Structures are given as C-alpha cells and as structure tokens.
C-alpha cells in the first residue's frame, strides 16, 4: 500500500518515507555486493565486511541522502502549491472576466460592505478606543461639583495624585464673536499633563492675574500662527487678558469647541460668590487617581464624603452624590451608544452583503455543474475543486475589500463636514493600523463566508453523474435549502437593523412633535452679555434700555429676555423651599432658575396658565415675586391655588428672600426637546440681575432681517454691549434634534441598504426555484392549473422565507431594543407600531421580490418546457 502511494507521482513522501527509501536503497546495494563477493568465493561474513568497507561511512551517507531528499520533497511541495495557487487564481480571474456582470455585482456588494464597515469602525476607533492624548489617561477621572464641595474633596480625601477643576464660559471677543472657553484652576493643566506648544501653562503663581492659554485653533484663526503671540493681550468680555501659552492642536479639552482656558483665580474676582455657592454644581473636577487607588475605592471615599456634606449642609447637599466617572466616559459618553449602534448596523450590512455574494455563487455553481464534472473526469480531486471554488470566492472578497478600502478612504475626507460636530476627535479618524486590521479581518471573515458555502455545497454533491444526466433532484434540493437558510438569516439580520431604524425614527418623529412650550416662528434669540456692567444697577439699566430700544424698532412685534435659552440651556438651577413644605424631599426641591424680563413669556409664546407675568413694576425695590412652571405648580399646589403662596430660593448668589407666586406658566423645555417638563422658577430680572440675558425678539416677518438694526439699536444704548450669536429659534430647534436625526438617518441608511440586499437575495432564491421547477410548473399548467394558482405558489414560497426571517429577526430586535433604550424619546424599544410596520414591509418585499419570477412562471409554455427536457 505504501509502495503504491509512493509510486503515485503526485503524492509527496513524508520524512519517514524518505528515511525508509534511503535505507531500502542502501540495503539493496549491500545485498547485491555481498552476493557478488560470495560468488567470487568469500565467506558470507567476509563478504559483508568487504561490502561495508567498500561502501565507506554508512551513517554519514544515509544522513546526507535523507537530508537532500527531504529538501527536495519540500521544494517540490511548495512549487506544486504555488503552481496550483497560480492556476486557481488565474482560473478565478478568467471566470470573473468571462462573467463581468456577476463579478461586478459581487465586487460592488462586498466593497460597499467593507467600505462602510471600515468607515464606521474608523470613527469608533478614534472616538472610543484610541488612547486619549493625556498623561496616564487611564487614571483620569471626572466629577461634577460645586467649588466649595471641590475644596472638601481636596481637603478630606487623598484619592487624587493631582487634580484641577474647570467650568465653561462664553467669552465675547472685541469683534463680538463668541468664544467658548474654559475657566480652569491652577492644577488643571498639570493634571492633564500635556505640555503647551508655545509659552507656558497656567499655574499656582498666577494667583488672580488676568492670564489665558489659547488653543492651536484660535492661535491660527485669530493670530495667524504668530510666533510672538505669547505676551500679547486679548480683549475678552471687556477684560484684557495676557496670553501666556498656546496648546497643541491635539489638546481639545473637554471638547473641540473650547478655544481658550482662562485662569480661574482671575475669573473668580468677577464672581466671588461662585466659590461659596454649594448648589452651583456647574464645575467639573478632572483628577488623576493615585496609582494604588482603585476607582471603586475612590468612589467609596467620595460617597462617605457626600454623606458628611449632606449632614453638614442639609440645604444644599441633601441627596447630592459625588459620582466619579472615567474621563473617557465623560468625554464620549453621549455618543458611545450611537456609535456602537452604528457599528452593529454596519456589521449586519456586511453580513447581508457577503451572504448575497455566497448565494449568488451557489446559484452559479449549479449552472457550472457540467464544467465541474468535466474537471473531475479529467482527474481533478474533490479537494482540488473545493480549493478552486474557494479561490474564486476569496479573490472576489479580496478585490471587493480593496475597492471597499478605496471607498472608505474617499468617505474619510467627507467625514468631518458630515458628523464633525457630533463625534469627538473626528480629525483623528484615519485608516490607521488597527482600523486596517479590522478591515482585513472583515475581508477574511467575509471571504470565508463566501467561500465556505460553495464548498459545503460541493461536499453534498455527486459531481460525476452530473456529466451524464445533469444535476439530480436531491442535490438541487440541497442547494435550494442552503440558499433558503442563507436568505432567512439575511432577512432576519435586516429585520433587526430595520426595526432599530423604525424605533429610532418613531422616537424622532415624536421628538419633533414634542411641545417645547414655545412658538418658534419669526423669533430671533441672542445673548446680551452684561459682563462689562459690573454693578447690579448697571446691568438693570443696560438690559432695560437695550430691550426698550429693540422694542421701538419697526418690524418688531415684541421683545423679552431671560437668563435661560429654550432648547439650549437653562444656565442655572437652584434649590428652593415652598412655604410650609420644608419637609419635601430634596430632589423635589430642585428647579431651573431663570431671571426673566417683562414680556418674556408673551414673546416666547409660552401660555400663561394663571396669574400674570412680570411687568415693569416688578422692579428692584418692589416686593419679591416669582413665576413658576406648571409642573412645579402641579406638584406643590394640586388644587390650583398657587397664586399668592410663597417660596424661597436657597441661592446665596442671587436671592434668599421669600417670594410671592404671581403666575404659573406652561412648561418650557430648556435643555432640548427631550427635556421633559422640568420644574422651573422665574424671578424678575430687575430683582436678580445676572451678568447676561438672552434677548428674544418676535418679528412681523423674517427675524434674521432685523439683525443689523437690532445690533445698531443695542450699540446706541452702550457700544460695549455685544449682540452675541443671533439665531432664529427654528435653527435652535433643528440643532437640538441634530443628534437623534443623525443617529436615525445613519441606522435608516444601513437598514434600507440591508433590506435592499436581502430583497435581492430573496429574489434570487425564488427565481432559482422557479427555474428549477420549470418542468413541474409546465406540467401543472398543462394539466389545467390556473395562472393565479401557479403565481400564488411562487409568492407563497417567498412569503414563507420572509416570514421565517421576520420571526428570527424580531427575536434579535428584542435584544437590540435594550441597547437602544437610552436613545429613545417616549418610545419603547418593542414599539408595537414599529414591529407591525416591519412585518408589513417584509410582506411587501416578499411579494415584490417574487413578482418577476411569478410572472415568468406563468409565461412558461408547457409544450416547449416539456420538449426541452
């Protein structure tokens, strides 16, 4: 048997075979020599000795021969593999060229799948996975606090090796441009550990001096990248600040929007009460944990501290927690789920794409049975043919993948302008090594999926008889079953993505129709910073005069102002106490705190529920009053008797007086459309003059047409007053829906693409089924079956596949729903309307995909079909 095996040219000898061969050869030689010597008259013993002597060193020779033979075998094996690979690839290439239509569809399908996957993963990688550009970023933590609380954290815990605190502020440049900046403590930069590109960082020695560090961006845009920028003075909101340093372009903390960082020591000289206000939790600590401190340990210390603070300061700290989160969660928390959902969707798309190509290959294989049979007949082994088929699939996957990378490369260029505002560190998105690695992995997995299906099919097929009789019924049935299984999984996966898209879409529509409590048409809003009016009196008169001068403009219907901007930010929140209800739990005693001018609610279009809104008579010296939101009123005064009752703000910065409730207004959503009915208290601006006011102007016509005259009117009151960021209210609404719109669009895009591909797959299977059963259908028709009944049989097959896919997909959709929950507004993940829509759509697709094959089936001419076979 072994000899037979070795005798066959194309099997290779193993190392053992080679050793055996060498041994046999030498043994044969010695025996021949001994026989010769014995014939010449030597004794057997002497003959053996003589033969061995003539041979020389036996062992060395045997070893030498074996080594050479093994080398040769190895070379031959490699050469044959190389030759076969070249044959396989050459053959695959010829097949592709011979059927350019099929090749193009397969390549494009895979290219789109790989391109989209690469693109989405490159974003995920840059935003979620790539290391943050800060020293010891794994130990950096964030914590939301008030400044007095931060002092306590530093004094009574030792969890941080180094820590700083920052807040944010909108600064007005000399040309009225609004620049977002951080207000940072002396240890802020050292904690992050990023050295400046130019100059120095803010440190302990700066005390209360007016210094600022600017971003690379601002350095380029405002100073043209001048090397001597350090030491220059910059006017920000009326203060002259000295630039001491420029940060590198990669430093975008906390977000890309932050263009400068002002010394907190200086900023606090303008707002000294912020350092004492325990309820002003608008600051973020960034701290580097000690190497030996686990986050859970640190959290334990903070929780204990929070409890102590709640006892010491019940008014401000009851129920307030100190929650440590990793810096990465703080910086990318909002987009994480959205990005992961996008990644999941795109992976589904890739799977559907590859399954389609596999299915296509299967269908083509059936028509190639004859060719394969010929190849078997002329001596190709089954394994050889399997490799051949796999080579075709893998070549398709590789070419498609390469094309996909080109697509991704193009897409990358367009990315910042498409999603730049929503995804952190978008400019660092690139086809980096890890991204390419994942692409390569996707290509390989895709290639394997595409390759394994035809090989599986081959393993179930008796090729030889195909040469004589064509494919047999059983094999065809297996092909059909394999393709059916593929298409069911495809539809299932598509259904998962689709139901996700529908649920997100449903949530988005609800969000768009949400009642924000305002009438946004014909309205303009802008910020009027009053930072250069240092006294409360100056702020009172400047704001009043500015509002009056705008109201006098032609084209203005009404004007009002408040310290919060609807759909964007309430700016401040406060703790309060309703008279006689000091026992209410702390979390029911928090509310947005907004100071408003007369006519604010009228201008905003917020309905007055009862009482009155502020008037000019609610002046500084008038009795302290307050207007509350409907939700707040309902909670504390369920009988509708809020008017005339009293409440007090616990807010040392602005007001600690008991205030009489004079009005109840409809709820306004201050943080965005999904900020459902937040309790809000309003005070008259004259009684609580904050250093800014958002002015709202309702116009008779296009509000943006008024910007120039408004600016002129405000400057004529005081030319230091900026009109900052004037925007139509409708623009603010669309900004506040930008994130959900982006998410929904993205997932919807993948869902539509996936569904189309799945529909193509379904169509292919049904069409194949019709082609396979031409004879059967012909017989039915010949026997008098009606056209509708034949059509129905075809459609029924399609429906059965689709419904099986739906059943599979809806199960998966339940899992997806749990992931989506946090992204939804007043919509449940298993929203019955969405699920019903999925089912309905799938039925439509199933009927659509089978329409053509069904028509073809009824066009079959029985006589011809039967004759052909």
């Amino acid at each position, binding site marked *: 048997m072994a*000899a037979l095996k*070795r*005798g066959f040219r194309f099997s290779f000898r193993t190392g053992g075979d080679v050793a055996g*061969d*060498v041994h*046999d*050869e*030498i043994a*044969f*030689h010695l*025996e*021949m*020599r001994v026989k010769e010597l014995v014939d010449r008259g030597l004794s057997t013993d002497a003959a053996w000795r003589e033969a061995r002597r*003539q*041979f*020389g*060193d*036996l062992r*060395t*020779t045997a070893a*030498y*021969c074996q*080594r*050479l*033979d093994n*080398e*040769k075998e190895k070379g031959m094996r490699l050469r044959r593999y190389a030759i076969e690979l070249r044959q396989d690839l050459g053959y695959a290439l010829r097949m592709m060229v011979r059927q350019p239509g099929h090749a193009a569809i397969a390549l494009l399908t895979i290219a789109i799948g790989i391109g989209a996957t690469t693109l989405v993963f490159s974003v995920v990688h840059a935003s979620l996975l790539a290391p943050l550009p800060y020293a010891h970023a794994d130990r950096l933590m964030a914590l939301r606090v008030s400044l007095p609380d931060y002092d306590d954290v530093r004094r009574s815990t030792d969890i941080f090796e180094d820590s700083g605190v920052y807040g944010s502020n909108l600064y007005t440049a000399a040309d009225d441009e609004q620049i977002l900046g951080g207000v940072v403590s002396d240890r802020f930069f050292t904690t992050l550990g990023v050295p400046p590109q130019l100059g120095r960082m803010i440190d302990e020695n700066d005390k209360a001096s007016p210094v600022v560090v600017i971003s690379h961006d601002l350095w380029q845009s405002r100073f043209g990248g001048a090397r001597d920028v350090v030491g220059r003075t910059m006017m920000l909101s009326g203060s002259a600040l000295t630039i001491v340093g420029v940060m590198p372009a990669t430093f975008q903390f906390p977000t890309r929007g932050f263009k400068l960082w002002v010394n907190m020591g200086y900023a606090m000289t303008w707002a000294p009460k912020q350092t004492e206000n325990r309820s002003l939790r608008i600051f973020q600590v960034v701290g580097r944990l000690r190497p030996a401190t686990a986050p859970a340990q640190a959290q334990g210390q903070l929780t204990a501290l929070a409890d102590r603070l709640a006892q010491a300061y019940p008014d401000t700290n009851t129920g307030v927690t100190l929650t440590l989160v990793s810096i990465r969660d703080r910086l990318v928390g909002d987009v994480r789920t959205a990005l992961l959902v996008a990644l999941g969707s795109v992976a589904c798309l890739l799977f559907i794409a590859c399954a389609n190509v596999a299915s296509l290959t299967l269908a083509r294989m059936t028509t190639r049975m004859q060719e394969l049979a010929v190849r078997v007949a002329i001596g190709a082994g089954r394994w050889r043919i399997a490799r051949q088929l796999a080579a075709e699939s893998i070549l398709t996957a590789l070419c498609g993948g390469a094309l996909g990378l080109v697509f991704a490369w193009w897409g990358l260029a367009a990315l910042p302008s498409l999603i730049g505002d929503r995804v952190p560190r978008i400019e660092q998105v690139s086809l980096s090594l890890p991204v390419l690695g994942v692409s390569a992995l996707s290509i390989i997995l895709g290639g394997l999926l595409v390759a394994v299906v035809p090989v599986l099919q081959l393993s179930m097929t008796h090729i030889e008889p195909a040469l004589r009789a064509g494919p047999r019924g059983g094999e065809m049935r297996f092909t059909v079953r394999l393709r059916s299984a593929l298409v069911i999984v495809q539809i299932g996966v598509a259904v998962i993505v689709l139901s996700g898209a529908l649920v997100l879409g449903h949530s988005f529509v609800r969000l768009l129709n949400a009642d924000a409590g305002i009438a946004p048409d014909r309205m303009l809003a802008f910020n009027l910073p009053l930072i250069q009016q240092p006294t409360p009196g100056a702020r009172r008169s400047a704001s009043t005069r500015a509002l009056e001068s705008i109201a006098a403009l032609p084209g203005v219907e009404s004007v009002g102002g408040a310290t919060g901007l609807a759909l964007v930010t309430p700016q401040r929140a406060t703790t309060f106490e309703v008279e006689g209800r000091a026992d209410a739990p702390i979390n029911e005693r928090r509310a947005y705190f907004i100071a408003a001018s007369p006519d604010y609610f009228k201008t905003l279009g917020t309905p007055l529920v009862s009482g009155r809104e502020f008037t000019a008579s609610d002046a500084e010296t008038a009795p302290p009053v307050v207007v509350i939101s409907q939700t707040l009123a309902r909670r504390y005064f369920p009988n509708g008797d809020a008017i005339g009752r009293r409440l007090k703000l616990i807010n040392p910065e602005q007001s600690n007086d008991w205030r009489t409730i004079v009005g109840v207004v409809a709820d306004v959503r201050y943080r965005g459309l999904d900020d459902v009915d937040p309790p809000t208290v309003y005070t008259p601006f004259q009684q609580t003059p904050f250093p800014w006011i958002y002015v709202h102007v309702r116009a008779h016509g296009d509000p943006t047409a008024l910007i120039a005259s408004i600016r002129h009117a405000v400057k004529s009151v005081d030319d230091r007053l900026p009109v900052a960021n004037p925007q139509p209210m409708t623009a603010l609404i669309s900004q506040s829906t930008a994130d959900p719109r982006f998410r929904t669009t993205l997932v919807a895009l993948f869902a539509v693409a996936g569904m189309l591909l799945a529909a193509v797959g379904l169509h292919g299977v049904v069409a194949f089924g019709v082609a396979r059963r031409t004879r059967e259908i012909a017989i039915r028709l010949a026997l008098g079956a009606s056209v509708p009944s034949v059509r129905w049989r075809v459609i029924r097959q399609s429906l059965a596949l689709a419904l099986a896919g739906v059943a599979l997909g809806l199960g998966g959709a339940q899992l997806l729903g749990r992931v989506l929950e946090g992204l939804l507004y007043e919509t449940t993940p298993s929203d019955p309307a969405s699920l019903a829509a999925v089912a309905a759509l799938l039925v439509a697709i199933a009927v659509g995909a089978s329409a053509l094959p069904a028509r073809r089936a009824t066009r079959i001419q029985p006589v011809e079909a039967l004759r052909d076979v």
Partner: protein
Amino acid sequence: MPRDPALNVLQGTLDLLVLKALATGTQHGYGITAWIRIRTDGDLEVEDGALYQALHRLEYKGWVDADWGVSENNRRARYYSLTTRGRRELRLTEDTWRRYARAVFRVIDNPA
C-alpha cells in the same frame, strides 16, 4: 544544498561518471558501480557511499530522476535516469573535461 562531507576533489569527476553511466539507460546504484568498474578496467576505485551521495545530489539538482522499480533478480530497487537537464549537463561537463585533459596532456607529453 547541504555541504558535501565526501572527497571534494573527486566530486566533479564522480558526477561526470554517474551521468555518463546513466546516458546508456536507466540503472540502479549497484549497477552504476559495476558499469564504472568495467569501463575503467577497475583502475578507478570509487567508494560506494560517495556514489550514492552523488546520485542523491544529482537528483536534488534535477539532473537525474529516481523511481522504484524491480531489479533483474526480482528485488525492489531504486532506478535512476537522466533528465533533459542532466543530458545537457553531461554534454557540457564532457566538453570541459576534454579541454582540461587535452591541456594537461599537452604539458605532460611535451616536457621541453
């Protein structure tokens, strides 16, 4: 190729003899030793081990092919034959040898 432990000076000569032996037809190793002894009247003593090393070396180079066959006394033996490349090598080596030998003879035969 692994280094040759056998006599290096003889190697070229031995390879030539083996190729020449196979030029007349397929042969096994023992047959080649016999052929060499007959053609050289026993003047050239070739160590059998070195011969087998030469055979395997030539096979590795692709100058000869080897296959198992049945010997004249019905034993299983490894038969060698020249490949096309081997035939070409033989011609080249013969030419080289003739020129080499002529040159050496000219020196030896005309001692003046």
